[in-house]
């Protein structure tokens, strides 16, 4: 049996605003193993985004336990969470979230800067170039994000997510801001990465793309309603 990358047990999340209490997630259980490609689908407001921020340690669960590569991360301080995000998690967002002021190269290099030990310039250069090559963006390394099309920006964002060699890639609606053709390209890049061993967890409401994942989870009103493991590899 392959290594368990991520394990969520009985995770719940409650939001309180003024006098209203909303249960965004209830009793969620998820296991993701090395090399898997998991999709989480569901309608707007079902709790996908909340689940993703818990998975990505952007937020802490109200109840339940969460482990990444065996490490309990259910309740961390903000700074501890930041360090683990840096080491273990690669994010890809719907709105790309590249920093406009930095070049493509510097954007991709950013996570390496927040390492406990700043790597050597040489290491950074090699690593960034390798990642840009994986997403076929080496030729735009010197460009600024606003000089790129949406699809290209999203590929840069994927390179940035990969650069620190994370345990898992968390992908949030990667095609939401793209036209259908660019969306297809980005999805193909993700599929390629997965084939080469990257573990991916993707949130999308696009049924077509959700189907590309080998494991498909369906979320409705904060609960997982379907856990479907496709036996058939591509």
């Amino acid at each position, binding site marked *: 049996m392959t290594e368990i990358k991520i394990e969520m047990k009985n995770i719940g999340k409650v939001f309180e605003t003024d006098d209203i209490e909303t249960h965004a997630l209830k009793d969620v259980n998820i296991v993701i193993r090395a090399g898997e490609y998991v999709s989480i689908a569901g309608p707007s407001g079902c709790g996908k985004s909340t689940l993703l921020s818990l998975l990505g340690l952007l937020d802490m669960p109200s109840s339940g336990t969460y482990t990444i590569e065996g490490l309990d991360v259910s309740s961390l301080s903000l700074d501890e969470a*930041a360090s683990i995000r*840096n080491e273990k998690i690669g994010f890809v967002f719907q709105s790309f979230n590249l920093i406009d002021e930095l070049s493509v190269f510097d954007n991709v290099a950013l996570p390496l800067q927040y390492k406990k030990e700043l790597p050597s310039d040489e290491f950074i250069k090699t690593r960034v170039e390798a990642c840009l090559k994986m997403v076929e963006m080496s030729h735009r390394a010197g460009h600024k994000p606003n000089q790129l099309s949406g699809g290209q920006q999203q590929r840069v964002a994927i390179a940035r997510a990969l650069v620190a060699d994370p345990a898992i890639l968390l992908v949030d609606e990667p095609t939401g801001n793209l036209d259908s053709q660019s969306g297809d390209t980005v999805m193909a890049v993700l599929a390629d990465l997965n084939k080469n061993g990257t573990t991916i967890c993707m949130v999308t409401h696009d049924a077509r793309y959700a189907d590309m994942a080998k494991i498909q989870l369906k979320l409705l009103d904060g609960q997982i309603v379907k856990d479907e493991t496709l036996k058939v590899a591509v």
Partner: protein
Amino acid sequence: MRKFILQQKQAWASLKKKPGFVLTVLMTMGITLGALLCAVTLNYLLLVEPLPYPEQERLFVAEHVLLGAEKESKGVAFTYPGLVHLYKSKVAFEQAAMMSYGQDVIISHNSQPLVNTAYVTPELHQILASPMAIGRFFEASEAMGTSNPVAILSYSTWQKEFNASKDILDQKINLSGVSYSIVGVLAENFVEPELAETGRETHVWMPWDYNHTGEGQRQSFGNISGNLKFIGQLKNGISQSQAEQLLTPLVSDRWQEGVMEIDFFKGWSIDIRIRSVKEVVIGKSESIAIMLLAGVVGLVLIACANISNLFMSRTAEKQRQMAIQAAIGATKKHLFKAMFAETSLLMFMSIIIALILAKVGFYIMQQYLAEVLPRVNELSFTPITFGSAIIVTLIFALFFAKLSTRMINYRALNTTLQSSGKGSGLQVSKKTRQVLIASQVALATVLVFANFSLLKDAVKTINAPIGFNTENISTLILNFSSTNFPTNEESIPIMAEIMEKLTALPEVESLSQGRTPLGGYSVRALTNVANNERYTPYFKGVDHKYFDMIGQPLVQGDNFTLTHRRDGVNVMIVNQAFAKQLKADGDVLGMQISTGRPEPFKVIAIVKDISIPGVTAIDNDNVTDGVPRVYIPNRLGGQSFILKLKSGQSVSRQQLAKLLAEVDSRYSVFSFNSDAEILTRSLFAEITTAVTTAVLASLVFLLAGIGLYGILSYGTQLRRFELGARMAIGAKRKHLILLIISDNSKAVLAGFVGSILLFAIAYIGLSEYIQPFLNWQVLPMVLASLVLIVLVTLFACYWPLRQYINQPAIHTLRGSD
């Protein structure tokens, strides 16, 4: 280190993107911190920095305080024999020197320049440890009573008048017919104690014996002179008050003995007052410096509020970026460090600009304020300047970085990432914004109003009517370059010839013998013969054409005649102020006034008051400075003249020197100044105040304007989506403009209330200073300040709104551009 450089690089890259922001911060902080460094350095120099003399804490100045019969102070000035007596007594002082200040013309020099002179005893050298550029200071062989004609030049005179000639020593210069041999040049870094007046530089130093006191006065205990000074080093263990107690009987007894025969001084005495040299030099400038610092600190506070606001909106703007960084693993410390890298870089650049501006400020003060503020020539970068620069840089950099990062709600960052830009995560809270607006308005209103009031007062003084003409009027004072001074009778024909030639000049319209109302007064002791009342009015000799020429009308009686002057008739014209002193109803024609001479003077006319600016308070309805003035007919041999030139004409000093030389080679030009120039000089403090306050008021207004604009426009930006929603519902421009104005008006009103509170606090704390300013005349100033602030606010409400209300609603609603 590599990390630090990387951070600075990234900070720079990020700042480069926002040139407007960087420029605003650099200009605002650069200018205000520059002013702050200037003010701090000045304050340190005036309040703390010791004078650059050895044992300066033991350096004191002794002064004669003349006390009347009721021990009331009649004035502070030495009599010549009184000073010499004090000097010779050698009591209380380790060593001491006498000084007498004057002006003279170097007649041996081609351009015949008028120079400031000082006549001193040699001890001054030890007391001040005066450094020399060349040669030496005076020695014992040049002490009192030796009559050894040697001279020392100031460094600037050596440079300017003698081209810094290396073989200056033993060259001769001639002043007042005495040929002095130059024995030394003072060093460039010599700092002359400004004992006589602020900003006066002595150009030529000569031994005490050559001072300009007349032979008769050297013996007279009845004549006082403000030009005589006594400076010395107190003996160890003797305090200021001990010295006063020791010296007072010594000097007072001798003086009373000296004036025994003069009725006028009956019952008067002398107190010796000892003041530290520092106190004499700094005088009231301490409070000017502190006021300046207070004003500048106010300015810095406004600037700081502005920049805080800018940093906060920048943080809000960057929230997305920071959220991204946090998502990929940046800790709070990382974000703080990145922010600190930016703020410290900005503050570092600001302080560099500030230092440059401070240097410019020093130069401006040295060029223009040397006569208003003491010691400004010593202004330069000191460890205090650099120290405060470093501290200020660090404090502001930390403050702004802390302020910015404190705003970040770290827990809410993820919402920023997931919602597509319509972030609610990070913003300056409404309360903070309201407080910023209110404090900005309060500070600006107070400062603008204060500056307005000072400006108005200064302008009022500058423009106040003076009661006499100065247009095209100049005073010519002759210099006599021989030691054998001519008697009145001898000089009458010479002066007559000079006057004839002057009148013949095509440029001259008319001529009067004497000096203009701006100078030539002395203070004399007078006695009303009828009741023996004593008075000390200003005293001035004028000719029969004087009042006509300057346009000062007689209100009663008849003018002097040529006969009065020729025959030396004892008649007198008094001004209204003195007439009122003499007799409550002012009816003084025919009154007999004694000057101590056997025959008293008879009052033959009353002349209107004048008001010499810069002397006393101005009363706009009645042109008068309230100074009692007495005029007597001057003698025909007098050596000064009032020239009224035809309009548009001018006469040069050289032209006059040539004319004089043709008549009698012993005469040259001592001074030739136009009244307009003298007036400008005497109004210098007011003009300086006017310029400074105008500049400060505009700066405050500009900064407050920028600040209000910044915070109001930020507030409007935050409401973008709300505005968009209102637009979608169908709100029109006027609805939105009114909405923003009415929402901001509360904070502005609170600011006005705050400014009233600030005034109230100031009033309670400083009522004695403020009281004279409080009358209905400040109302227009208050209104003007309010209107200005309101206008800025309205502008700041409307302008940022433009970009939303003049575009299709979707841009506002969606946040896409």
